[in-house]
């Protein structure tokens, strides 16, 4: 089988033995190996099974385009599925497992799919899993789930760390092959800053494998010399193992650096996501070889000619002892010659072209390699490994002729420039008929903020495949990029390169061209997704004329392929089937990332404690020390309840509610928004912001206000206090503070910019403590310093003064229906005031209460809560809040919208209270059903529950809901189904359940 060859392997270090495992079996490789080269070097040709038919699969490629050799890598907290063996650097202790097979790679049950393949064509799932509907959940879904997905999802939390890097460069070159290095050199000569990133762990790309001469040197030597020059240039940064992943608007580029994939657990972050702004981006991303579509082109042992050459030259691995080369262009002869020189038997070169006399072909003949012109492969024989090929003529229908015994096939269908990064931000392509490839069209480049193109292509990525043309193109691209990014003109000449002259390619999309259905069903276009020539042709016959639709119908180019290997062949076959030219069909859209990147890299440092910023009130630590059961509210954490020992959440909430109603509760209300609005036009402005009249609010008084959007919907509420003649303090909801401040600023800055008003969001400047309950006044009196009597400080008034030595503003407002003071104090004094209140409250049974008790207290009083009673579709009129809408004002934000026909419709659901007949608690969000069913067989609805709680005060379930004609239906009973199918009966009542006269709060 395969073997390592002495004298080959420029990337491996034979003195460094590396041990690893594949499917539990131990293997040895060398330093510098990839997992793919090490496995191939150890004779392991079959590396996985295909997704749909579970066919045995081996290596096809040697780089990022590899479709088959995807493995599960690592173990436990470092396990990751779908890692490409071809781009995985080998390290000591690496553990890999193959995918898509059960129970083992060699013997697989799912391979049965292969024998029913003719019954699983494109669109099989769409056509099959339609009816009966009853089978969707029980039969179809489990079946589809069973077959869906590539690889196994990791179970454990990732052991590694990841980070972001932010960077700015004048020019970023993506690709460190000879084109990229020359482009960087030319750009650097203009004096700008340059970053060069190379996906692989070595520089120079393909050139050292492909040969030729640059400035009188072998490409490998030239690469070394240029690297040294760039390292010493002072304005060039070189990064290996870093991929240009995506190009976005205005020169934004994502780089994906695999820092420690090859040295796991060494303490460094595993990956870095580079978020780069570049003046100009040069994509020197090279080209990918295309497979040829012949019957059996997926049998392990059939690989790209360039890949076979790579394994030989880079890693000293011969993919076979006796090989056949099949091609439509000259480049594959390089593989034939290299393999022959390495002592392998090259049984034949089958060239689809009728006459081949180019220097490379002549060299092959001179080396004694049989060159068969006008020939094609009729069929590959072998199952888990190539055994032989049957030869036929390219022009015919595939009548099998001579059988050539071989254990590997090198194929070349020509080359396609890697245009992904060019295309990400809108760069367009043009079809080059002669070279049979799509190349970037510089006339239709992605443009930046200045209107100039910001992406340039260099070398093979431009379609300049020959070494001399490639370097000339790269030199020009680098120069232009440097200049475009603000560099000075450079007259430095590019390098002089030479290589063998090549004869023209002859496009071959199906081999042989007249192949019948039996053969077309065995011609793979997309190995990973098991899409064959016959599938694309079927899609065309069924009317999928757009390449995008065909892609989705057949899954061609899905998953990790994304237009790398399968794209051009697939769309050429589609074009033939549709009898139209290839450019007319076009390509599918290239989207980032170029290859899949890790979730960890995307998340960066944002995990665990750093997931998002946490806002804490000044009392946060006190809450934590006193049993706070936290609830996230926006970015804040607020105590849901304070749990005493042995107490459940529900028990704590009940205790807190009862104590507040009977004695005294303390609430940390610091998170409530506090926006100061000030200026000669502040009153006029607030009259526009609120539905209420705020300009007439007397100094010293408070008013509950509603705020709507221009669409008329209720967006926030809160108490407004007038501080002095031209100053108002607007309280907002906790979650609304920033949003409402932004809303005010938007109107001030963009509509009424001539009004003299300033706003300031002072939310965090004050701690605010609610002192709530019948004994509230007693506590404040105990602190002393201010007259807090009913006469001096009546309900809905506020006063400034000193309480127990603290400088405070005291607001007599109530969200509980109890006697209540909200005390604002500079944030730095918040804890001290809280402590003083707790101490003074001791004789009065003081207890802190959390957000859930707050909710229950307000619901018992029928007070609405933004986000419960509102959901962005509710107007104040729906909630019976007409009393808070000024009739005297000509205008306010939302007024016109509330006059629209749908808003004024009497059929809108209106807020009422709901009292269950059995005292139970209605599930939150439940619907109130009406007679009959809708077109989907679901019960008609006539309302929904917006808030629902157990009321410890009334010892029963209480709720509020929006109900059709609700306020006119007092006393009527309605039905509310539960998810478990049971039904609850509830009576429509007023929204206020407790102390309807409001006597308790106004004492």
């Amino acid at each position, binding site marked *: 089988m395969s073997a390592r060859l002495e004298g080959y392997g420029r990337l491996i270090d034979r003195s460094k033995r590396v041990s690893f495992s594949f499917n539990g079996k131990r293997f040895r490789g060398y330093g510098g190996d990839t997992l793919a080269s090490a496995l191939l070097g150890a004779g392991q040709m079959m590396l996985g099974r295909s997704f749909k038919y579970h066919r045995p699969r081996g290596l096809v490629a040697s780089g990022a385009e590899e479709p088959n050799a995807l493995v599960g890598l690592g173990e436990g907290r470092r396990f990751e599925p779908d890692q490409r063996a071809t781009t995985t650097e080998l390290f000591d202790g690496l553990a890999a497992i193959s995918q898509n097979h059960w129970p083992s790679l060699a013997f697989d049950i799912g391979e049965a799919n292969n024998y029913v393949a003719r019954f699983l064509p494109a669109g099989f799932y769409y056509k099959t899993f339609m009816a009966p509907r009853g089978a969707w959940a029980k039969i179809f879904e489990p079946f589809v789930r069973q077959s869906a997905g590539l690889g196994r999802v990791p179970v454990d939390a990732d052991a590694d760390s990841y980070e972001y890097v932010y960077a700015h460069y004048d020019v970023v070159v993506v690709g460190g092959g000879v084109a990229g290095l020359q482009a960087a050199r030319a750009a650097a000569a203009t004096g700008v800053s340059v970053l060069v990133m190379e996906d692989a762990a070595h520089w120079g790309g393909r050139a050292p494998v492909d040969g030729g001469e640059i400035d009188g040197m072998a490409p490998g030597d030239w690469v070394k010399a240029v690297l040294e020059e760039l390292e010493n240039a002072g304005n060039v940064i070189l990064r290996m193992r870093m991929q240009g992943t995506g190009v*976005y*608007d*205005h*020169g*934004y580029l994502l780089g994906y650096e695999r820092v420690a994939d090859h040295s796991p657990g060494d303490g460094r972050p595993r990956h870095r996501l580079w978020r780069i*702004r570049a003046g100009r981006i040069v994509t020197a991303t090279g080209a990918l070889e295309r497979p040829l579509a012949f019957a059996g082109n997926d049998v392990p042992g059939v690989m790209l000619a360039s890949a076979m050459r790579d394994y030989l030259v880079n890693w000293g691995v011969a993919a076979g002892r006796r090989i056949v080369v099949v091609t439509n262009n000259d480049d594959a002869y390089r593989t034939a010659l290299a393999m022959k020189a390495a002592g392998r038997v090259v049984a034949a070169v089958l060239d689809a072209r009728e006459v081949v006399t180019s220097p490379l072909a002549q060299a092959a003949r001179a080396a004694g390699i049989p060159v068969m012109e006008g020939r094609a492969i009729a069929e590959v024989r072998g199952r888990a490994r190539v055994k032989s090929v049957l030869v036929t003529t390219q022009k015919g229908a595939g009548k099998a002729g001579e059988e050539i015994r071989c254990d590997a096939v090198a194929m070349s269908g020509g080359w396609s420039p890697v245009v992904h990064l060019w295309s990400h931000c809108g760069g367009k392509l043009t079809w080059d008929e002669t070279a049979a490839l799509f190349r970037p069209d510089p006339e239709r480049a992605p*443009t*930046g*903020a*200045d*209107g100039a193109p910001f992406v340039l292509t260099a070398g093979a990525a431009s379609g300049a495949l020959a070494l001399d043309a490639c370097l000339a193109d790269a030199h020009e691209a680098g120069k232009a990029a440097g200049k475009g990014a603000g560099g000075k003109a450079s007259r430095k000449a590019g390098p002089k390169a030479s290589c063998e002259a090549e004869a023209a390619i002859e496009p071959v999309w199906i081999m042989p061209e007249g192949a019948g259905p039996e053969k077309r069903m065995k011609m793979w276009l997309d190995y990973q997704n098991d899409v064959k020539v016959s599938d694309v042709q079927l899609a065309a016959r069924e009317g999928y004329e757009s390449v995008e639709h065909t892609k989705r119908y057949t899954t061609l180019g899905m998953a990790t392929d994304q237009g790398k290997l399968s794209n051009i062949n697939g769309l050429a076959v589609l074009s033939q089937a549709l009898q139209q030219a290839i450019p007319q069909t076009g390509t599918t859209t290239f989207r980032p990332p170029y290859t899949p990147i890790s979730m960890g890299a995307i998340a960066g440092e944002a995990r665990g404690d750093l997931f998002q910023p946490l806002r804490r009130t000044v009392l946060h630590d006190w809450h934590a020390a006193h049993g706070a059961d936290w609830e996230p509210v926006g970015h804040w954490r607020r105590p849901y309840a304070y749990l005493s020992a042995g107490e459940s959440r529900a028990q704590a909430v009940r205790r807190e509610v009862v104590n507040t109603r009977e004695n005294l509760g303390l609430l940390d209300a610091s998170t409530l928004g506090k926006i100061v609005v000030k200026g000669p036009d502040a009153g006029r402005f607030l009259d526009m912001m609120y539905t209420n009249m705020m300009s007439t609010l007397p100094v010293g008084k408070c008013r509950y206000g509603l705020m709507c959007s*221009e*669409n008329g919907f209720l967006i926030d509420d809160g108490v407004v206090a007038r501080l002095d003649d031209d100053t108002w303090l607007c309280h907002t909801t906790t979650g609304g503070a920033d949003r409402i401040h*932004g809303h005010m*600023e*938007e109107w001030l*800055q*963009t*509509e009424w*910019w001539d009004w003299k008003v300033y706003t300031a969001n002072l939310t965090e400047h004050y701690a605010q403590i609610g002192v709530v309950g019948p004994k509230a006044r007693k506590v404040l009196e105990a602190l002393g310093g201010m007259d807090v009597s009913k006469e001096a400080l009546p309900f809905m008034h506020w006063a400034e003064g000193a309480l127990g030595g603290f400088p405070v503003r005291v607001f007599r407002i109530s969200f509980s229906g109890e006697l209540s003071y909200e005390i604002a104090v500079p944030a730095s004094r918040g804890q001290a005031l809280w402590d003083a209140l707790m101490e003074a409250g001791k004789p009065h049974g003081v207890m802190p209460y959390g957000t859930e008790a707050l909710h229950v207290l307000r619901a018992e009083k029928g007070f609405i809560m933004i986000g419960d009673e509102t959901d962005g579709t509710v107007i104040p009129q729906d909630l019976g809040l007409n009393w808070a809408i000024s009739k005297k004002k*000509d*205008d306010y934000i939302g*007024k*016109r*919208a509330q*006059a*629209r*026909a749908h808003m004024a419709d009497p059929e809108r659901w209106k807020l009422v209270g709901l009292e269950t007949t059995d005292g139970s608690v209605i599930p939150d969000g439940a619907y109130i059903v009406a007679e009959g069913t809708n077109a989907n067989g679901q019960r008609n609805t006539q309302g929904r529950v917006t808030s629902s709680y157990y009321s410890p005060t009334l010892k029963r379930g209480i709720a509020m809901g929006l109900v059709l004609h609700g306020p006119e239906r007092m006393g009527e009973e309605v039905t509310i189904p539960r998810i478990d199918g049971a039904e609850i009966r509830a009576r429509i009542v007023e929204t206020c359940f407790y102390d309807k006269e409001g006597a308790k709060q106004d004492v």
Partner: protein
Amino acid sequence: MLILECPCCGVMADETELAPGGEAHLTRVGPEGSDADFESYLFDRKNPKGVHFERWRHAAGCGKWFHAARSTVTLEVFGTYPAQVTEPPKALLATIAKKVPGWEGWQ
């Protein structure tokens, strides 16, 4: 990931610092407006393929609203200017007219 220059603080701001605000230079229709006018003010937007005048807020920066003239096709930014105007600056309109042949104007 656009970059726009905030005309208030002068920062070349990344899109992550900015909050979008839709089409610029809308005229507010108040309680006196007809149903059709109000609907148009609330919902009708130009959505052009080409030159677009739009509102942005330097939300994670100085907090100021500003306007930007930008091509939705090429992503070229013709200019940014303060929001406290009812129409784009004349010099900017001249620049755009010169750069975009056949442009029909901002209204």
